């Protein structure tokens, strides 16, 4: 299935370079955690992940066609 991924900020280096890119997954379902593993994105710098604008848990299943945005940790304010 095909999804759109946005790796925000410093996490973009785990993708092709651009923050936003299309991605093919060779299975009919995939969790967020599995997706990050596939991309070799370490979990420690990840703040949270949204699917179509909604914050989700790591075991959330993807079906195809979603926009998955991965946000980095921030300090301060």
């Amino acid at each position: 299935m095909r999804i759109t991924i946005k790796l925000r900020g410093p996490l973009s280096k785990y993708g092709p370079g651009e923050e936003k890119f299309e991605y093919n997954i060779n299975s009919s379902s995939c969790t967020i955690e599995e997706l990050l593993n596939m991309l070799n994105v370490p979990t420690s710098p990840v703040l949270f992940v949204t699917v179509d604008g909604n914050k989700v848990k790591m075991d959330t299943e993807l079906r195809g066609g979603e926009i998955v945005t991965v946000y980095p940790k921030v300090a301060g304010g």
Partner: protein
Amino acid sequence: MAYTGKVLRVNLNTGSAKTEELNKQWADEYLGGKGLAIKYLYEELQPGVDPWSEDNKLILMTGPLTGTIAPNSGKLAVAAKSPATGTILDCSIGGHFAPQLKYAGYDAVIIEGKAKMPVYLYIEDDKVELRSAEALWGQGAHETEHTIAESLGDVVTLAIGQAGENLLPIACISSELYRQAGRGGIGSVMGSKNLKAISVRGTGGLDAPDIRKVSTALNKIKKEDTMDDENMWAYSDGTPMIVELSQEAGILPTRNFQDGSFEGYKKIDSEAVKGVLKAKKACFACPLACGNYVETGKTMVEGPEYETIALCSSNCGIDDLEALIEFNRLCDDYCLDTISAGSTVAFAMELTEKGIHDFGIRFGDVEKFLQMPGLMSRREGVGADLADGVAAVAEKYGGEDFAMHVKKLEIPGYEPRGSFGMGLAYGTADRGACHLRAWPPPLEAFGDMDPFTSEGKAEMVVEMQDDNAVKFSAIFCDFWALSTERMAEVLSLFIGREITADELTEIGERVYNLSRLFNEREGFDRKDDYLPKRIYNDKLLSGKTEGKLMPLEEYEKMLSEYYKIRGWDEDGKITEAKKKELGL
């Protein structure tokens, strides 16, 4: 080794300056920066002092790492008794001023008294002069800096604008045009002393034992920690990254905190800012370069930071990025704290729309919005009423329930009804509503803790406050997320002895309690640690936090638990046992 051992004391009444020894015992107990500045103020100020009188003191305090190659060590603590709140006030300003002071030979500057005529202070190594600022008085901070640079060359300058001169409780201090010591009216402390600017150049240097070993160790830390994925958000985006995070969590202040979600957020988020980015900018010794220098065709600023976006854009119903940048630039020039200015303008908008008092400005009115910094700073037109911040406006016209301040300091950019821990942090911060003492959103609204409960929040806020207190005393920049273990490792390289993470936590607790003691002495207690009634009574309107409010009982629960964990009594006063434990 890490300290020059010298403090410069300037008396503006007599026009004299003398050097005295740094109090080494206090430096051991409080490290520097925030903690050491508060200690000096606690010992030297009489309770009840008028913050705009000549008896208030302005302290510029460096830390043991200032001027070294320790990453993120370049900031300066600026402290005084706050004219806005009457509490202790310490601010943190970046840029390049602090190291110059250290190279000139001083750990700190203490400024006392009041000059008869406007002056500026010029420090170049041993040479200390008070020069006439009569030609500068009435100018903005930017013109002031440029003019001083033209006569003195490459000095670094702290300056105030018209807001500080006119004693606005929301006046700040600027440096290098776009860096601020922002809150609590710190700029008006300089204004009340007729002190227009402070310029410094230092040509000396700092030794360190086995400097190559130190440098190697720090380069390793820089690469593995400061510049790792967890900290590089600052370089990639800077604080505007937080706009999307707050919008997602429903805690982005919107239309005077009536809502936590703003429909126009995409026009003011970090991608919008990157669209006008010209260059990244860093403070001294900082590899993160969080600064975003932006230029549109018509205006420019180093910014806008998240707080400015939250309080001046979404909070004012404004989604015009160029207008925000211009508002930011004006505030930096007049020297207005953007959090307080944005909140006051938003309050005026709501009062107008509700028919309580007509300030002639409504949410989203870009034209009137851009007139506000000038009118407020010069106390002209509607600015005359708005100049003193939301608490003063509410006192005169009403709307107290939605005057968004704690202890008269305007609330920053995170909606407490969507982050209960943040609410507790605002209520218990030492200088009034502040997000820099404890910052719960990463664990709460952006993290896994339930944001809508009091559970576990008191413990979290206490730990964050103590950690930040020692962080700002050692002087590490807020934006480096480092553990107390790492702080200890870096400090141990410079202070001539091994220091442990536990000792640092103890110092943090001591600093935080000392600031509370200062406030207690000024008459503050539990009654002052509450939030505006809007938080307890009004439901948020839309988005992820639609319908949410914070019941007062939940807040009371958090507050009582907080005092208990702190070792304070039910009234929020430090117990004798706790004072003894910390050596206060």
